[in-house]
């Protein structure tokens, strides 16, 4: 893979055989990363932040996620499952987390390490970091990889506010591996650390992390894939659950919006969830509208991680379940002084601004391109109908200026051309008879017009709107 591909690796991809070329996903993508081209949805790699909105919104289930399968347990001598806190909220009447953790062992894992337990260490480290770096307030949480990716491409002024602490899953992976090595004496590469994820964003994080060079997680399974397999094991585990749970209320609370902020133990915070709300908060934050806060928790999914597209339960029902589960738990059960293993909690690699939306190489070039965009926008109907395959008229104008689309992609522009041609044709044919010119020359000219008209109508046929051809172009992502 070249650097660009690694830098913009994505876990979300398109199953072309299922894509109907409708415009649902292009309208919902928060970074306008999707275009329908030749009847299929294409994701522009650099713009995509793996938030999963298109996976959620596609009614044809054509948006898929690269995810590992349970077979990967066979690749290692010893495996440890890392269940995400939001996973606990997927089951009805679960009163004891140990039932779920025991069922994971029955499913085939050798051990479990709760991401929630690591989250308590992250909370502790975050509190210390925020306290000692007041000049950088407010800090923005970096646990949701989609938020970090969004800031990287759209909010350069906020990069300095990113909390440079590794996400709980990374800390959990380090601890789980060290514990497994100590327990079994096996070398590091014989141990498989497998995260059970609520979202595609975390899959992307593992393959192409931000804040560190390499993730200690070896594989990622989806909660929705493991869920049905676990249910029968949980029935048995219910009889005599093993004592495996080490996460308290703070750690499990991370599964919902507001949970991470709760672990900061301060009133000076804001927690926003849902990608559109996150963008609004970042816009305001960029304008320094609430600089006095200490901490900003942001989750791309509504409700927080419980709203991840790989979870099965309704996020708000899941939230209620977490509340119930947490009712009798101690505030925190995992503390750094109890951990004998040395682990890395801080980022070791800074996040850098990637100006992917930039329109020209220089400001001067951008000014000229902006003018072209404006004049194109004035020609378009402003309906944002999506028929051209871009989410809005402005997005089409930008695509044209970037050399990735044509004016005739707009059905209204094309329709006007056809009207114009047919009107001219009609006028000429009448005039030709009145003038009584050489009949052959007249017929020849009319034939020319007829050909042009047919050509334009053919263009309309090839338009996304009514394209039914199955396009078998290689590559799921659409790059430059």
């Amino acid at each position: 893979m070249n650097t660009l591909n690694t830098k913009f690796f994505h876990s979300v991809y398109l199953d072309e055989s299922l894509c109907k070329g409708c415009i649902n996903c292009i309208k919902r993508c928060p970074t306008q990363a999707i275009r329908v081209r030749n009847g299929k949805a294409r994701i522009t790699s650099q713009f995509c932040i793996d938030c999963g909105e298109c996976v959620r919104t596609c009614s044809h289930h054509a948006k898929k996620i690269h995810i590992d399968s349970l077979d990967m347990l066979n690749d290692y001598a010893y495996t440890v499952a890392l269940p995400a806190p939001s996973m606990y909220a997927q089951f009805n009447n679960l009163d004891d987390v140990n039932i779920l953790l025991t069922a994971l062992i029955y499913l085939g894992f050798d051990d479990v390490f709760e991401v929630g337990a690591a989250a308590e260490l992250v909370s502790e480290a975050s509190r210390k970091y925020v306290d000692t770096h007041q000049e950088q307030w407010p800090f923005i949480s970096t646990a949701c990889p989609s938020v970090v990716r969004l800031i990287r491409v759209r909010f350069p002024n906020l990069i300095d506010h990113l909390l440079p602490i590794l996400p709980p899953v990374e800390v959990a992976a380090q601890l789980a591996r060290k514990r497994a090595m100590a327990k079994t004496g096996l070398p590091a590469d014989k141990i498989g650390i497998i995260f059970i994820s609520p979202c595609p964003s975390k899959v992307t994080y593992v393959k192409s992390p931000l804040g560190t060079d390499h993730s200690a997680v070896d594989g990622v399974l989806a909660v929705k894939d493991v869920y049905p397999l676990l249910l029968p094991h949980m029935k048995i585990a219910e009889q005599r659950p093993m004592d495996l749970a080490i996460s308290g209320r703070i750690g499990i609370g991370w599964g919902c919006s507001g949970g991470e902020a709760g672990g900061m133990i301060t009133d000076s915070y804001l927690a926003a969830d849902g990608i559109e709300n996150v963008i609004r908060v970042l816009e305001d934050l960029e304008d320094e509208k609430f600089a006095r806060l200490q901490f900003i928790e942001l989750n791309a999914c509504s409700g927080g991680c419980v709203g991840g597209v790989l979870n099965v339960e309704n996020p708000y029902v899941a939230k209620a379940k977490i509340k119930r589960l947490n009712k009798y738990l101690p505030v925190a059960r995992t503390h750094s002084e109890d951990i004998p293993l040395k682990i890395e909690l801080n980022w070791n690699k800074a996040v850098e601004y990637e100006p992917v939306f930039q329109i020209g190489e220089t400001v001067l070039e951008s000014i000229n391109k902006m003018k072209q965009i404006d004049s194109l926008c004035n020609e378009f109907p402003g309906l944002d109908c999506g028929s051209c395959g871009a989410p809005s008229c402005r997005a089409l104008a930008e695509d044209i200026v970037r050399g990735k689309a044509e004016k005739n992609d707009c059905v209204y522009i094309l329709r006007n051309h056809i009207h114009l041609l047919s009107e001219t044709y009609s006028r000429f044919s009448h005039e030709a008879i009145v003038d009584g010119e050489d009949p052959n020359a007249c017929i020849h000219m009319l034939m020319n017009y007829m050909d042009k008209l047919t050509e334009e109508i053919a263009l309309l046929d090839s338009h996304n709107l009514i394209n039914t051809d199955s396009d078998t172009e290689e590559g799921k992502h659409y790059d430059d």
Partner: protein
Amino acid sequence: MEDTIKLEYIVSAEDFTRAGEASSDLKNILKQMGVSPDTVRKVSIAMYEGEINMVIHANGGVITVFVTPKEVTMILKDSGPGIPDIDKAMQAGYSTAPDNIRSLGFGAGMGLPNMKKYSDDMKIETELGVGTTVTMTVRIC
């Protein structure tokens, strides 16, 4: 002018739901143009303060923005009551905003001082009963 892009925004009176739309739009356009993050920040903060001022004090108005490769110029023109004492209005913390506006979290008396702070050059022309025009320039570096 060849190398200039002109943008125009109508700011409607007392509509807080839309206040900030103009500065937000300008901010995104400047980012797309590859203007440095620091310049974008200064423009966006100065313009937002000005936009809010027009909503609170002046029954709205029109903002015209010119962007050249060297600078961003924002001309905020309103037909409001005018500013009786510019020196006083420029003092940090001085505000004539009514209580209902303050209860919304605005009217802290930082509008004009912040506009001056975040722009490289600011000029105020005002006439009582006629209106105010504030011209702010931020250099592109």
